[in-house]
């Protein structure tokens, strides 16, 4: 167990390092943009009339403080980190004076709910069908599915999304085409509201599943068709081991480790939101927030979303690293 703790500490150290470097990069890049939020705010609020120069100077001072642009470069940098650690990214410029953190907190449940569900469904379904297709290579149904997956795979995502919108929004209008839930409904844990959320998430989730299924399916199928020629699988067949047991414990279990890494990567990646999905389906998640922030030059918000996403991806990888020795006993923990 001592070995495992040392291993966990090492991975934790890597996590901290990755987050630190990533957030620094995001800081440098956003600060290198030609947008000056202070000047933008001032010009926005003075465009409808004249203001006294003293008032403008006063305003500039307080805005600089608000946006963390006060003092020398190194003072700004240190202040930035002390605020990041407290989860404070300052006020949003485009939605002034709402804090960036509460904008992200408002959008995050939508993104997490939609993307975690669809990612896990896609992963589980794609891998299960892929494993079956690799194991039962003569099954016609699975062969047909493989062809369909291969055919759908190269179709650009936005085409699939638009086709779904047209089919289920106009041709056969049974699903809502935009928004996260019905507008006129009080939010809460009651059935009508939850049903409305589920209904609104059906099309975006379906589009993500359709486009994501193929790559998991094809990846797992080729993994499995390699594994079934491995000695331990052939030996289990000669040993008369139950076929279902062979598929589960000898084939899928061995293919699981690399696929689980992939799952962690894509789960970590959802913190950026699915930008195109959220835009196409008007979904109120982090992706929409990020795109709007970029258009509005709201760099506090961009930096906030980026930081959360960096932490999210790294956390996903960290968690997988921590449970990996349990999945594959051959991984040495020292």
């Amino acid at each position: 167990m001592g070995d495992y703790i040392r291993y966990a500490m090492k991975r934790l150290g890597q996590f901290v390092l990755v987050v630190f470097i990533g957030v620094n990069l995001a800081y440098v890049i956003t600060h290198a943009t030609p947008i000056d939020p202070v000047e933008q705010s001032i010009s926005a609020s003075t465009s409808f009339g004249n203001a006294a120069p003293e008032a403008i100077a006063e305003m500039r001072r307080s805005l600089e403080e608000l946006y963390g642009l006060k003092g020398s470069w190194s003072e700004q940098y240190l202040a930035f980190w002390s605020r990041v650690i407290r989860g404070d990214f300052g006020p949003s410029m485009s939605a002034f004076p709402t804090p960036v953190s509460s904008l992200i907190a408002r959008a995050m449940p939508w993104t997490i709910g939609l993307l975690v569900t669809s990612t896990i469904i896609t992963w589980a379904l794609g891998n299960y069908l892929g494993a079956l297709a690799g194991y039962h290579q003569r099954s016609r149904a699975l062969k047909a599915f493989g062809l369909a997956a291969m055919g759908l795979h190269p179709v650009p995502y936005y085409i699939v999304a638009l086709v779904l919108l047209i089919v289920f929004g106009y041709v056969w209008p049974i699903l809502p085409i935009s928004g996260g839930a019905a507008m006129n409904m009080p939010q809460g844990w009651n059935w009508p509201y939850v049903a409305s959320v589920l209904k609104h998430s059906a099309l975006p989730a379906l589009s993500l599943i359709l486009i994501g299924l193929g790559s998991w399916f094809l990846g797992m199928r080729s993994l499995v068709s390699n594994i079934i020629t491995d000695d331990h699988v052939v030996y289990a067949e000669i040993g008369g081991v139950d076929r279902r047991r062979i598929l589960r414990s000898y084939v899928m279990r061995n293919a699981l480790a690399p696929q689980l890494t992939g799952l962690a990567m894509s789960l970590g990646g959802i913190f950026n939101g699915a930008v195109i999905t959220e835009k196409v389906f008007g979904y109120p998640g982090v992706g929409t927030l990020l795109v709007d922030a970029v258009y509005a030059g709201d760099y506090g918000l961009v930096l906030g979303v980026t930081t959360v996403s960096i932490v999210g991806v790294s956390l996903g990888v960290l968690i997988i690293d921590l449970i990996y020795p349990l999945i594959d006993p051959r991984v040495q923990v020292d």
Partner: protein
Amino acid sequence: MSAAPILQVRNLRAAFRTHHFGVRRDVPAVDDISFDVRANEIYGLAGESSSGKTTLIKTIAGVIKPPLELVGGSARFAFLPDCESLAQASPAAVAAIRWSKLAYIMQGSMNVLNPVRRIGKTFEDFALRHIGSAGDFQQRVEAHLQRVRLEPSVLRSYPHELSGGMRQRVTIALATICAPDFIIADEPTTALDVIVQKDVLAMMRDIQGAMGASILFVTHDMGVHAALTDRLGIMYAGRLVEEAPTDVIFRGALHPYTRHLIASLPRIGDRSERKSLTGVPPNLANAPPGCRFHPRCPLAVDICRVQAPAMTELATQHRVACHVVTGEAA
């Protein structure tokens, strides 16, 4: 030694069959092989690499997959008398005898254990349905492991935590846990160093003696055959060319190929140079007509180039397939 055979192989043929653009090609890897394995006997199969040893025993064990196909003949086990060969038997019938009657030790058997499954679980997968309840089973496996000098703790280990020799012993314990009537062993000791090899062979001997199984033992290593097997069949290019009790093969082989094989073995104190046969084993996709050994045979005469010699019993328990030796050439 006159017990009824537990395995009767008759005119067995198997080929690697490929179809490309409507053209069928057969590579006859097992060609017209007949032999018996008796109860309680260790029968050795020898021959150089690619002589069809593994293909033969895979066909006998019914574990062939396309492109390898059974072409004809039979391989009948005494415990499944209604069944011409396992390759044609119903899956249920085969599943019933797998591991309880027929066990198999695979080539490279150090690497046949599932890397992500504890050894104990593997034992359950292979044997639990044949032997008693779970509680009983644990005790029986632990007792059986002692026969191959393994601690019960290996049951909680993963394969990668054991040494090669230990894994080898695990597979031998795994193959013998159900006390099968028949064990097929394909080069089980080839990857081991000679010290471990000696141990493993002694262990197989002991277990076979104690449990009374028949073993079909395949290796190209003549030293192993000398130490272990009761009778020996020599294969060349997919055919059986000679069969006799092991000591007879070593002292009085008749077939020119077998004689060369024996002469090539080093002997202590003998410093003379070992002669190599000219030529290489034939490509079975384009096998020579007649006796497949004739292009390399120092005794070859005309008939050898035309007609394949049949296995002929020249002395008690001694069969040879050679025109010259049986005198048909004259």
